[in-house]
């Protein structure tokens, strides 16, 4: 995959490197000065967070540069480990053993394989239809009917969150983006022209409806925007991480209105609203990195806000599961970060919604057929 044909990815990676560098410097300075008056526990959390982001960033950057297949394999491994953490914490009965074997070794690889083939229709329903029917049937076959629906639901939710939802992030790489010539922010003179094109495209989509949207609008000789897909995935992961951090930062302000004190006492309305608003702002500033910038600059702000809200929903849901199981974290993979699932909970919920919103946008603007 040629990522260098798209300078936006390089700008984005450069920007993140700069941010991480600044964070690293801040951590080192604060560590040298214990008299700075900052709570050492908060400082330690911040230090571990920065370390985690550095690890995440290096792994992702390496996978992106090595191409789509490597990225998909990386996400398959993440799914696999997350599912491990999820099922480990969820009580199952001996009768579920063989079902679990297939849930681990058949469905995740098959699902990612269909993403690799870019068979949208198949990977879209493999888990929510076929796996979800396989699980109860296979448990019934084992002959253990105790708490049947409960056990079925647990395994299904594990597959849904850890494999299906998470895989929607690398599935962004299968989208057909607007061709490079339409979107590349190469020259300043492109600006007014792009502005003019907006109403035309909007009317065409409105008048033509789904029939016109299904047609291929772009001439075949245009360069496909391969680097743009990687940029889109990177943009998505960046916004999720920023939204986590900003929601945490906003929830530190006094006069806290906790949303669900029984589930997670650190999530406040101030954090959610402030975090979402600031993430939308960041998204608007990064409009040039998304495929939406050719048409509506505010689309990327709206998408970022959606990511922030879904990320919030994800970590609240996973908190509820952890509360029910009476644990603080899903595992002990990285020091100070709990399990892998604790770090990707917001990605899991934001990815499918972001994937489908982006896909709808592309279909509406005629870049992709609605099916297949």
């Amino acid at each position, binding site marked *: 995959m040629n990522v260098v044909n798209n300078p936006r990815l390089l700008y984005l990676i450069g920007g993140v490197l700069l941010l991480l560098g600044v964070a690293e410097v801040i951590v080192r300075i604060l560590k040298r000065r214990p008299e700075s008056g900052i709570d050492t526990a908060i400082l330690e959390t911040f230090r571990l967070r920065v370390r985690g982001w550095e690890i995440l960033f290096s792994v992702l950057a390496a996978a992106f540069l090595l191409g789509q297949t490597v990225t998909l394999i990386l996400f398959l491994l993440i799914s696999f480990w997350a599912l*491990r953490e999820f*099922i*480990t914490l969820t009580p199952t009965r*001996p009768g579920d*053993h063989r079902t*679990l*074997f297939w849930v*681990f070794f058949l469905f995740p690889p098959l699902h990612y394989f269909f993403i690799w083939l870019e068979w949208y229709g198949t990977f879209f329903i493999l888990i929510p239809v076929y796996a979800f029917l396989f699980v109860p049937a296979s448990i019934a076959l084992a002959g253990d009917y105790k708490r049947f629906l409960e056990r079925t639901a647990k395994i299904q939710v594990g597959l849904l969150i850890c494999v299906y939802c998470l895989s929607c992030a690398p599935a962004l790489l299968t989208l057909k983006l607007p061709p490079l010539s339409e979107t590349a922010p190469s020259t300043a003179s492109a600006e007014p022209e792009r502005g003019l094109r907006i109403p035309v495209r909007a009317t065409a989509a409105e008048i033509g409806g789904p029939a016109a949207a299904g047609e291929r609008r772009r001439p075949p000789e245009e360069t496909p925007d391969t680097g743009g897909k990687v940029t889109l995935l990177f943009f998505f992961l960046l916004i999720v991480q920023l939204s986590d951090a900003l929601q945490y930062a906003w929830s530190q302000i006094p006069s806290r209105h906790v949303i669900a004190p029984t589930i997670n006492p650190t999530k406040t309305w101030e954090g959610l609203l402030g975090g979402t608003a600031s993430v939308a702002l960041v998204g608007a500033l990064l409009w040039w990195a998304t495929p939406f910038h050719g048409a509506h600059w505010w689309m990327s702000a709206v998408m970022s806000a959606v990511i922030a809200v879904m990320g919030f929903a994800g970590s609240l849901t996973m908190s509820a599961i952890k509360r029910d199981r009476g644990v603080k974290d899903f*595992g*002990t993979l990285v020091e100070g970060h709990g399990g892998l699932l604790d770090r990707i909970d917001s990605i899991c919920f934001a990815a499918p919604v972001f994937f489908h919103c982006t896909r709808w946008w592309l279909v509406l603007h005629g870049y992709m057929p609605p099916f297949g």
Partner: protein
Amino acid sequence: MDTNLTRNFLALLARLVSGASVRWIDSQPDTCQRVYFANHTSHLDAIVIWSSLPHDVRLITRPVAAKDYWSKGPIRRYLANKLFHAILIDREEIKVHQSPVDLMIREIGHTYSLIVFPEGGRSDGRDVGEFKSGLFYLCKKRPDLELIPVYLDNMNRILPRGEVLPVPMLSCLTFGPPLWLEAGEPKADFLARAREAVRRLKEVSSE
């Protein structure tokens, strides 16, 4: 094939399949002569304990296993004899002058450590079963051996009784503080104390 390389590969594989996180509570890995005794719920137990020891300790640690299971078929025999240097105990024919305890003492000499499962067989993983008396007679003859309790959590879900295919869930291994047979300690007291040491690790590991 290079045996040492195969061993390291196998140890790595066992760590990956069992996803074991290892904790040492009030004790440290050491190359002194020890007896690791653990609860037993899965065929993988011995290899998981063996693989979670540091490399130099692993080299001098030998699992004690049932001969009827581990001498069946060439693969099991290869694993037990060549890779783990297991001490195989004949469960069917226990002779007076060839008792398992004598065999163990002869085999370990003054170098090797042992991995034993004093419950005698695999349990369903809910509670630690009563200990068989072998551990007591072993310590009676070699009171210098350090006894390290080990609690294996979740192994019964990874490979339960009667299953062939493992499900790669995560497990947890807890090594506890060493204990010794006290001078003149009655058998029942000692076995109860040893069992309690393993059960205490269960409580600690679920905290």
